[in-house]
């Protein structure tokens, strides 16, 4: 499974077609969820599938399909972005290494549900006690991001016809239909 994750992750970068790379990305998300199931963290695995594969990647796919990205042009800028990308990659590796060294590599430190019956409880117990502040802060950041996105895209154009649902449902027969006696040969 780890092999599939790695290969599909490489394919994300290597694929010529942007839609294909998103599909590879989805495969790598999905397989990493499989890895989590293997170490016994089913709850996290399912959340990964629901949130990343089921929601985030769908929107990703939407955007990539709708945008007409010229990939040849993007490829030419590859070298100039390389140092920045490498920096981010290095930072990630450093973080993971740090976390691993800090916790040690004993079997107990990788126990998916320490001190609780299953890992749903285990996560709930620390998330709403020890890390409550961080948890709420991250929620707040998401809220700010959401409001920001709405503010950026919301624009009231003055001459747009809008549908008022209340108006539509209140419409009665008498408002819409008028009986007219038309004399023959005259028309309205």
């Amino acid at each position, binding site marked *: 499974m780890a092999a599939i994750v790695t290969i599909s992750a490489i394919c994300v970068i290597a694929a010529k*077609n942007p*839609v*294909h790379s998103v*599909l590879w990305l*989805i495969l790598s998300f*999905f397989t990493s969820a499989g890895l989590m199931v293997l170490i016994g963290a*089913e*709850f996290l695995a*399912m*959340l990964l*599938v*629901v949130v990343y*594969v*089921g*929601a985030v990647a*769908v929107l990703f*796919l*939407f955007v990539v*399909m709708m945008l007409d990205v010229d990939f040849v042009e993007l490829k030419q800028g590859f070298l100039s972005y390389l140092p920045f990308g490498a920096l981010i990659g290095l930072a990630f590796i450093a973080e993971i290494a740090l976390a691993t060294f800090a916790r040690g590599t004993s079997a107990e430190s990788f126990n998916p549900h320490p001190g609780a019956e*299953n890992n*749903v409880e285990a996560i709930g117990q620390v998330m709403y006690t020890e890390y409550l502040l961080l948890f709420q802060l991250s929620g707040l950041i998401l809220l700010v991001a959401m409001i920001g996105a709405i503010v950026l895209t919301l624009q009231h154009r003055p001459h747009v016809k809008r*549908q008022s*649902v209340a108006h539509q449902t209140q419409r009665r027969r008498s408002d819409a239909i008028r009986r007219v006696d038309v004399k023959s040969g005259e028309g309205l």
Partner: protein
Amino acid sequence: MSAFIQEHGLLFGWLTVIGQILLFTIVLLLSLAFLLLMDRKVWASVMLRKGPNVVGPFGLMQSFADFGKFLLKEIIIPAGANKTVFLLAPILSLTLAFAAWAVIPVAPGWVVSDLNVGVLYLFAVSSLGVYGIIMGGWASNSKYPFLGSLRSAAQMVSYEVSIGLIIITVILLVGSMNLTEIVDNQAGGFWTWHVLSWNHFILFPVMLAMFVMFFVSALAETNRPPFDLPEAESELVAGYQVEYSSTPYLLFMIGEYLNIVLMCAMMTILFLGGWHGPIPLGEDFVANFPLWMVNLGHLVWFMLKVIFFFFLFALVKAVVPRYRYDQLMRIGWKIFLPTSLGAVVIVAGYVVYMGVQA
């Protein structure tokens, strides 16, 4: 499962699991053939038609005839299509539709995999179902399927949100995500089913509303009428599957109907007591019968409920006019989402202050 394998040896254990999966698949496909017929028959009856009645007695063999015809037709792949993704899409949607059934318990212990995050698994797999549709629409490399798939996907993603929240209310009430435990929580007769939940009297209106909303969301999630805007056959050139023919189309269709039956099964499990009959028979009475007979009885109840829901799905298709797309989105985001969020808060408050869970 692992305990079972340890007891009976690796080979026997795996063989049993594979046997269970095969049995599930075959039974599902066979019952799907007749459910499809039922769908058409109900639809026909409402319109005072006879429906399929030529192939076999009462048209019982109609689905099998259709099946044969689908298989014998030529598979046409559009010249501009992305061949791999084009063929992968229907396979993916069928596989996912089957995979979701792995955690559905049809009778006590009669389940392929009794995950303790069963509900979440169902939710995850059904949220993956969008990919078959998007991939199919995109790979066809044509405008109509692409637009159809975008409409479909937008609709499914929107209603997933409210379905997720409604599921959370049930999870809160039970205190477990295991489907077997959710069913067993409703063991005490029809008044303890989550639709009514008279044992939590205050919650009765909330859960009833949740049930109705789940039903409507399930209609929208499976692109069934009155929310079948992605394929609205009387108004548009179908949806994402325009370019598909023969077996790939068949796979899409089976996947779609499997998802509908899955939704029926989910409603049965979450709200209608799963395999439990409406009136509990009492331990002493049940003990007179051998276990397999009891389980068979449970299975019959489960299937009856699923068929009842499928009948409702078919009936809705026949009697309700189609919605407009903006109305669909309005219901999903402006009515269902806030209402189900409110219900989550109410149920959570009830659970905490009444001490429902230990």
